[in-house]
């Protein structure tokens, strides 16, 4: 069964893009989003993040940060991340602003806050298509290492789901199996388009 997947984190930079990249390479139909109000990248200090609007191309961020302080952003892995991102898609997208992107079957989120945002947004949309959407949350810490792990897990999970005709009957088993195997908590909910 060919499902459409969405990977969602808060800034559509690290976790969701890692997963997006992986899933894309595995040939899955995937998109990625962020639910935050802005795209935030670390700046020279805690209180000076680099803030961008969603839709600002990764390339632009990349160039800008490289101009600003190549050393710093190389050291904290931002440049590498942006480089990866710009090879995946053009720009970060905001989940709430892209309802027009069509119908997804499965949404993976990587943070409870994001999960809640997605569900709330889905609930606020008009639900007339009678089309189920599975929203799952996998807690992944927002750093490069964890994102890589989270991405792999997401891929595994999606492939598992992909193997089913309809996930509605099997999702409990999939989730239970996943939790048992990886000792990670997975919550999900179901919403409608």
């Amino acid at each position, binding site marked *: 069964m060919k499902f459409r997947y969405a990977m969602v984190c*808060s800034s559509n930079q*690290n976790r969701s893009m890692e997963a997006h990249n992986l899933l894309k390479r595995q040939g899955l139909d995937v998109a990625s989003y962020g639910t935050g*109000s802005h795209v*935030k*990248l*670390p*700046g*020279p*200090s*805690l*209180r*000076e*993040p680099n803030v961008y609007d969603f839709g600002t191309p990764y390339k632009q961020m990349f160039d800008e940060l490289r101009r600003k302080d190549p050393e710093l952003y190389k*050291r*904290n892995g*931002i440049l590498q991340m942006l480089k990866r991102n710009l090879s995946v898609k053009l720009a970060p997208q905001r989940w709430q602003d892209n309802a027009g992107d069509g119908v997804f079957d499965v949404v993976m989120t990587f943070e409870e806050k994001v999960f*809640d945002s997605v*569900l*709330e947004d889905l*609930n606020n949309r*008009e*639900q*007339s*298509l*009678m*089309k*189920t959407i599975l929203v799952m949350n996998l807690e992944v*810490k*927002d*750093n490069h290492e964890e994102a890589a792990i989270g991405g792999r897990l997401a891929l595994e999970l999606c492939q598992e789901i992909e193997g089913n*005709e*309809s*996930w*509605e*009957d099997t*999702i*409990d088993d999939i*989730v*239970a199996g996943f*939790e048992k195997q990886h000792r990670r*908590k997975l*919550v*999900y*909910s*179901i*919403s*409608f388009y």
Partner: protein
Amino acid sequence: MVGIMASYSRERLEGLASSAKSATELPPKLHRLRNLRRNLQGDASVFPNELLPLLFDLLSDQFGAVRKFVAEILGEIGLKYVELLPEIVPLLIKSLEDETPAVARQAIACGADLFSSTLEKVAVQGLHSSELDELLESSWTWMIKFKDEICSLAFKQGNSGVKLCAIKFVEALIVFYTPDPSGSLESSSREDFNISILRGGHPILNIGDLSIEASQKLGLLLDQLRHPAAKSLNSPTIIVLINSLSSVAKKRPAYCGKILPVLLSLDPLIFLKGVHAAAANLALKTVFLSCLKCTHPAAAPWKDRLIGALKEIEDGGRVDKAEDLFFKTNGSIQDNDSVEDTKFQVSKKENPLCASSVVEERNFGRKRSGSDKNIDLNGDALSGKRARITPSMSGESTGGLNGDDVDSLPLVASTSAGQSISRGVSDTGPVQQLVAMFGALVAQGEKAIGSLEILISSISADLLADVVMANMDNIPPNGSSYADGTDGLVMNMCLVGSDAHIKYPPSFVAGVLSLSTAFPPIAALINPHIPKMKKEGEEFSADHVDQQMFPAEDAVLATGLSASSDTSLPVNEEGTSVFPPNVHYIGNIESDIPGLDSSGQHDVLSEAPITSVLGSTNVEAASKNQDASFSGELLLAVIPSVSMDKSEEFSPKAAGTGSNSLVSSTATSIASAPQFVLPKISAPVVDLSDGEKDGLQKLVFLRIVEAYKQISISGGSQLRFSLLGHLGAEFPSELDPWKILQEHILSDYLSHEGHELTVRVLYRLHGEAEAEQDYFSSATAASAYESFLLAVAEALRDSFPPSDKSLSKLLGDSPFLPKSVLKLLESFCCPGSDDIVQKNLQNGDRVTQGLSAVWSLIETRPGIRNDCLKIALQSTVHYLGEIRMKAIRLVANRLYSLSYITQQIEEFAKDKLLSVVSPISSERGDAETLIEDCKKEDLDVENPPNKSQPVSGAGMDTSSEATSSTSVTEAQRCLSLYFALCTKKHALFVHVFSIYKDASEPVKEAIHLQIPLLVRTMGSSSELLRIIADPPSGSENLIIKVLQTLTEGSKPSSELIHTIRKLFDTRIKDVEIIYPILPFLPRDDVLRIFPHMVNLPTEKFQVALSRVLQGSSQSGPALSPSEVLIAIHSIDPARDGIPIKQVTEACNTCFAQRETFTQQVLASVLNQLVQQIPLPMLFMRTALQAVGVFPALSDFILEILSRLVSKQIWKYPKLWVGFLKCAQSTQPQSYKVLLQLPSPQLGNALTKIPALRAPLTAHASQPEIQSSLPRSTLAVLGLVPDSQTSQVQASETQNIQVQQQEQASESQQTSQSQQVSVPLSHSETDHQETSQVVASQSQSSPIGTCPSETSQSQSSPIGAGQSEMSQATQVSDSDPQAPTSHTQTSDSQVSSQTQPDDEKMDDDDTVTSENETTEVEKSKESSAEEEEEEGEEEEE
């Protein structure tokens, strides 16, 4: 034209459909169908009916995907052409049963679309005509059927995916069938279709029936979640059910009462497990949260229970969030920005009422001014707020509407609402909410009877009773209570008005304020006008409402809903008329509405200083405010009725505020607020540039930093630390607060409480880094953390002596040690070369410091235990011995005993141990470079390469280093730790043995170097014995080393001896391993292994001999010297497998030790030996040697010889030869013994040693001797003519005739009378001369006293004889023996030449030794001769 187009497209469509049908593959089918669909969508003309059958056929296609797609197309067609529904729907119904869930789902989706559109069409048509289109009617009938089918799917077991869709459909159906309370008739879009447009008299649809059906369906949904049924559901179904129900509850709040009890009673944990519970819990949580957001009055009574349930679900974890959310929704529907967020936080701490009202006020203002949401939303929001706890707003808005409607009832409602709230401020519990709710419903009149019933039915009897009781308060006992209510109203209006003032500059407001306080009389004058203004205010708000095109009906509805009151309150006129007289009671309001009061006052208080800058007179006002607030707070504790009096006191001030509002009202806004709101508005906003902000912040920071003295005295340093840490984290990095802080800390670490401050800062940063809020900020914090800690640590290192504990303490207390800090620690413990150069003196202490820090970290910080251990271990193989020893001491003595790292330490040590073997032994050639590389690497890790040395020079140096010493030290470097561990755990020692075999020489050397110390430390423990008992092959040398060490100094234990014995017997035949214990072995054992020792090379035998003889201090020598000799002699070469040469060697060794093997010893040995039967093989040789070494023994020897004669020594050919030699060497004393021989033997002897003949004959010819000799003997000697025998002899031994002749000539010399028949040659004369010399010599010396004399006498005859022989050779070449003895001759000549000198000397040591050597040489010669003879004999 159109027709052509139509026909064209029709044909085309049909073509597509049929080709799709005929296609056998899935992709082309789908492709054609997609084309078909596109064409259909584009074509607006009448639908080609012919197409339907084709499509219907496709509905039974073999591919699920095709069926699904066709169902979708049919759905679209149905939407577009309602008249076709009766044909399409039955097929779709059939599709519901499709085996592919996707098809069924698609059918449901189509059903939902079709149903809603048909319903709308039916409804709308019914509005306009009393009869319906027949076609539509039949379509509707089909749709009803379709609907029922789908609904039945929702309530029966089946494919989950289908069921979920069906449930969703039911949800949609319920929503369709019930009026949308917030909906409006205006909206025409399908989404906004509202069943409430139906009026009575619709031909088909009856809103009541529909509601009943909706209720039924809802009931069915709910039933599924009730206890027994829910068990059989899977979690997706439960989630969807819960979500659907919540969605219904949200859209149709009237059902809240029905839905929420079920949801609340749903305890997933009871009947669900694992994932199910988690998923369901989550769904419930979401639902509850969203219900909390629901603003409909019907939802209100459930809020507390919802919060409670959430608490249960989350165990209190998320309740805060829930409450937060609740407030947020109450306050604003849009995204709340951070400003509001902070507001909420503040408000939460105070009174919830205050919070909501404050927010509300802002929000309201915004909605009025800027909200583009439509009216119903606004109204809805308002009603929601009212329903909860916001009397002020409700009062105001009703007031506003009131003005428009000129309707008395709402006004009353509003007043009482105000009152009820003012009463119930301190009690905002569910009861109060319910009262409000009832009020709202009742105010709705008959319409709301249904909802009212639901509400009543859904609350418990107790709660209902409470509601009634609570409501009793609302019944006005007297007028004053109304006054309260209206006060509330006034207040509220002011509040609202004040909001409109936000835009006014603060200075203006301040000015007004000062004016009013400056002229209280005017204020008092103005005061009565307030009601008028109120009127204006009503108009104002009404205007607003108008502007927003607030529909009249809705307005009524809204007010009705919101107004909380009993309908039984008829006194509306009174409500309005109460206004004027009570205005001056404003002060009272403060006390009655503490929330508002306190918030207002707070603002005043906080901003008072600022306003005072703007206008000095303001201070007065502010202070008055404070008074007021104070009294207000006091009043809170007093009953409301009493507060009346109190408020009177403040009436002047209240009047003042009244004037205030009047003045401000000149700006067209009515409700210029009472003064306690104003200061809040006048908050000054000073725009600072970023630079100025930074400057300020920096100043602040520096000031706190510098304030340490005062603070340390006053005792607030903890707070200061926290403050600094927090500020540091908050400040932008350009200010570099950390640097400032570091400088401060390091300027005087101790007195500035540097440790505490540093740790505080570190914790703060670490918390920031770990907060997980945002990866990016945490990354920055982490790097700040690292650099801070590193900077402080480095500074501590550089500025404190190594003995100082600060650094260690800091590391121990830091929440986390990043890599760089561990590196620093490592550089302590394993310093590189340039460090040493720089801090030569401190180095050792540094290492100690580093190691002790590492030690404490290992013990106290499990998280970084491994890293620290690595450092310590690294240090144990440091190339500097000093450092290494320190580290090893730490690791072996302290760390190794910690059970959690024992294993790692062991492994590391073992790796190192093995590393010593593998690289060096296998790649001998590369070993040096390898080691060098290792070294360099080590250095590189810790320090940059040493630059002080020229690179080439360094290379030269290292390569030119002595390879062996490098390898030995290198091996020691790697081995030390292991050896240290061995002392702790003896069993480890076995690996040393096992690698020993493969170890290279340097490594072995290194091991040997360390073994003594190690083994001494270990002692002969049982583990060690076990290792010794079963040593790996190839480790013999090591074992011997170990044993030597073990037996040094002390008596070995019996176990050890036993072990070694056993080992010797079983495994290792090398007798050397016995050596160490030789002294301790019993005599028999020693004797038993003695032959083995004899078999060793001379040097080793010497060692063994000395051990045996030396023995142990306790038990004395294992063997006495005589025993040793006897043991040697008792060796049978054949039996023991030992070459005779070894045995003679052993003898020689013994004889060499003249101090041990003394004359007496030899005598007793010989004495013992001679008694043995058979005689030992070497007996004669020993005797010969003995007499050679100790000439004084000659008498004794002679005695022995004579005993041998009696033993018929000639029967033992080997000994016989020795006997003769012995006799020869002891002549002339031995003549006596020789003459005792029977004549044949004597003859044989003389034949063997012809040289004896002459002297013997001479000796025998002495008359007294000759007389005693038997004739036969004399005959042999030729003293008695016995021709027969001599002839026989001569004829027999022709070959030795020459010798005989010589002998004869010799004897001739001694006995002048003897005549030799042999013709004398020239040589004979010479011989005679020499013999004479010899004789004279021998005669001149006293016989038997001087050894040299003896030797002289011994050697000279032979030498003389030989020399004579050589001379003879020179003369006559016919002599066959000549060439062999040439060198011998010269030797003996030399010796004889030296003899005269020796003679002159007295009997002293040098001479003795000189003689000894010659003696030894002699004995060697003789033994050689012996062997030759033996060889000859063997040949025979």
